[in-house]
């Protein structure tokens, strides 16, 4: 079932540019633009590709966060059933919004986002992706503001509105109070799994974030301790004083290593966990879409049946409204078939996606765990080395 995906978006130099199709994107160079409340960060998005529909081997555009949101929303609309890669959150605290760390985390997450789309065999065909990667800034701005305008739902999709109204009416008419749900035990199991998974992951991520904080706090306390030890050493003087001073110096040096490791931990361990949580939330959104599609299918099928009954009645009474009713029935039938098709597509997509998701996550977490373990081992080694270097001097002190 594993579909052949194009070469991972992260590769910079494909073997033979012309034969192997590749689409590789990097999000780089965050720059703060604008002033005061209007200020925002812009990114350079560099696309390297040999896809036929794309302009040239390389294209560079400038994008901002809301452009990424636009892309995500469009993909979500068009590719129901597919787990759209998650975006990093809108910023929380104002003060934090322009901190170097936040900017770097967001940049990294955006880079991962686009590359996941680029390496997904269906999503990479998207026209919206092409627009996002190629269009000039004015076009992008126009599209973006249109999207965030009042008319989120395109008026062209009258059928959609019609269907929505219909569903609401038929609900009341048919005396149904609860929304209709699939009675598929395997799917139930999956839904339960997804919801539970989010809880577990959120907890793990919470502790991971705390662990980052602990590293920082330990670093700070080592720095303060080092300073105090140095002062004590200055007061003591002689060999003992020197020992204290050396200890203080080592302590301060370790403090720096700890701060570094805290940053590493944040980027290589906590962020992937957060990303995992977001991915699960994206799945939940797809689950929602599937539920909508299922409900529509059911309701249209019901409505169609009613219309059929009505039509037969009219035909029997040879009413002059038969023509009209027939026409309506045909439309409804088409809509119903469309809804069924959509629903079944979603089901099919989801089944593929879940396999891909599990494998992807095993990979992603594997890397994260590896980096985490490496970082902790490295830190512990630094600590051991630093303290160990003091021992000969301390020995010399006591024998003196």
């Amino acid at each position, binding site marked *: 079932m594993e579909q052949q995906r194009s070469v991972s978006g992260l590769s910079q130099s494909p073997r033979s540019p012309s034969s192997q199709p590749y689409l590789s994107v990097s999000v780089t160079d965050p720059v703060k633009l604008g002033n005061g409340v209007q200020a925002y960060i812009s990114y350079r998005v560099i696309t390297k590709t040999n896809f036929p529909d794309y302009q040239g081997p390389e294209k560079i555009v400038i994008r901002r966060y809301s452009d990424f949101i636009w892309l995500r929303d469009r993909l979500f609309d068009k590719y129901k059933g597919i787990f759209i890669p998650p975006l990093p959150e809108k910023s929380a605290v104002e003060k934090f919004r322009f901190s170097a760390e936040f900017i770097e985390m967001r940049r990294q997450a955006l880079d991962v986002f686009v590359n996941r789309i680029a390496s997904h065999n269906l999503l990479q065909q998207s026209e919206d992706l092409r627009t996002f990667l190629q269009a000039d800034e004015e076009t992008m701005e126009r599209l973006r503001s249109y999207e965030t305008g009042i008319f989120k739902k395109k008026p062209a999709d009258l059928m959609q509105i019609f269907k929505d109204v219909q569903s609401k009416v038929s609900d009341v008419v048919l005396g149904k109070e609860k929304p209709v749900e699939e009675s598929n035990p395997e799917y139930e*199991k999956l839904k339960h799994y997804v919801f*539970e998974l989010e809880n*577990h*992951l959120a*907890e*793990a991520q*919470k*502790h*991971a974030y*705390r*662990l980052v*904080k*602990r*590293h920082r*706090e*330990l670093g*700070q*306390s*080592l720095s*303060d*301790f080092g300073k*105090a030890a140095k*002062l*004590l050493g*200055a*007061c*003591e003087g002689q060999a*003992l004083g020197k*020992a*204290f001073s050396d*200890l203080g110096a080592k302590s301060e040096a370790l403090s720096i290593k700890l701060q570094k490791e805290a940053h590493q931990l944040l980027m290589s361990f906590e962020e992937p966990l957060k990303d995992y949580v977001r991915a699960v939330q994206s799945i939940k959104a797809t689950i929602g879409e599937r539920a909508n599609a299922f409900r529509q299918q059911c309701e249209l099928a019901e409505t169609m049946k009613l219309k059929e009954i009505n039509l037969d009645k009219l035909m029997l009474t040879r009413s002059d409204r038969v023509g009209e009713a027939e026409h309506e029935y045909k439309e409804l039938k088409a809509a119903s078939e469309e809804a069924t098709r959509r629903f079944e597509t979603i089901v099919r997509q989801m089944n593929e996606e*879940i*396999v891909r998701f*599990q*494998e992807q*996550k*095993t*990979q992603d*977490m*594997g*890397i994260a*765990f*590896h980096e*985490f*373990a*490496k970082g*902790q*081992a490295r830190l*512990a*080694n630094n*600590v*051991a080395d630093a*303290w*160990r270097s*003091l*021992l000969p001097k*301390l*020995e010399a*002190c*006591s024998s003196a």
Partner: protein
Amino acid sequence: MMGSENPGFEEAHLFASREEMENLVLDDPLTTHHPNNNNSYSSFRSANSSISESTHHPLSPPVLSTSADSDPLLSPPVYRNPNASDNNSYIEPPSYADVIFSPFDENSANEINRIDSTSQDTDSSFALSRSSSSSSDYIKITVSNPKKEQETTNSLVPGGNTYYTYLITTRTNIPDFGSSEFSVRRRFRDVVALSDRLAEAYRGYFIPPRPDKNVVESQVMQKQDFVEQRRVALEKYLKRLAGHPVIRLSDELKVFLQVEGRLPLSVSTDVASRMLDGTVVAPHEVVQPAKGGRDLLRLFKELRQSVANDWGGSKPPVVEEDKLFMEKKEWIHDLEQQISNASQQVETLVKAQQDMGETMGELGLAFIKLTKFENEEAMYNSQRVRAADMKCVATAAIKASRFYRELNAQTVKHLDTLHEYLGLMLAVHGAFTDRSSALLTVQTLLSELSTLHSRAEKLEAASSKIFGGDKSRIHKIEELKETIRITEDAKNVAIREYERIKENNKCELERLDKERRVDFLNMLKGFVVNQVGYAEKISDVWAKVAEETSGYAKDS
């Protein structure tokens, strides 16, 4: 919290505390685990909980864990050094730290032999570390078995007034004591009396300060907790006394440790008879400071003298001439500041290490839950692979968490030396005060003498003008001469006392310097060796995980 999320994890609801969950994880046959870790971990945890609470005032005893915290698995705790050689099955091959740990093991061996220990406190090996290196004689004191007793005499309220007594057991091989093991029951009042008597008898010495009376706390705290807190404090105090080379052999301490029954309180001076007898200060009283005594007149005189010293135009008759001493005093003050500062930073460091360990453990447990979850719900092999990876990381995190917490318990033990010396600084202040008050007494007496002499001269001059003598004046002169004689004696005694105290100060300062150097060096060594040892262990744990997950490594 745990049981509800993971229906498959049957054992969850059986355990109340996180520690038991950790034990469960590490008991898993899939992970290596040394059975003794249970006990050592538990005693360290309780040791740690005594530290992680509240800001720790250097002189007050550590707050012990409340019953809610106590680990149901905890039987009478035996302090075990996790790095003792029998743990090598857990860490193979023996690391650098295990080899270097040997000076440590000696102390921990001492502590293991302390069978009488019913306390859970992380008693610093402060008193032990030096005595074991200098000579083979020892005094081991333990305080235990608090009992509630009834006040029998002079009780206005019938059935009222209860107090607690503590069993004080001493083991020693010093012949002066006459016996090698003995015990006595004492109440806190006796300790106060002991402390007061020592202060009288050993002026100029660095006498360890006694535990506070803590009147407020005794009303506010739970009786159990307060009594336990006091027991610990008493034990520490007596250990410190036993660690002082001069005081350990004092009569006062001997009586306290051996003789049952109420301790005689300090000799008090009767103010009334004072006033009646006149204004002369008897020589034997001069050996005590005016302040704190009941001799109001003497107090007043010395106060006047000290004011004259500070504000008077003329230099006092005798001044603190020892420049070296003045410099030393300043330096001691500075040292105290630095030790206090360092001690505060140590507390922060200890808390940070503690938090690190806790969070690491919580992270590990969260992943354990995830692992179980993924395994139960697995529909694809990728999930099982991920679950296995998670378990690997989780187990490592839990191990690392334990290491951090063990490291912390040791850190506290070592750096507690700083706290000990802060307490000692108080004793130093006391000794310096002894010196200055003795000096003040000398100055006062000298001033007094000069006043008396000039009065005598005036009287003699006046009476010599009258031929045949002035009976009343002659009588007065006789009396004055007598007073001068007595005051002269007192002055000599006071000077001798002052010199004696100066000598005591000097000896004690030398002792402080020598011992402090040794203690601090040991403290540093212990701390560093500890850090190295545990860092190596933690590194090993993670290196294994990095190895096992190396398949995921990005080729960069």
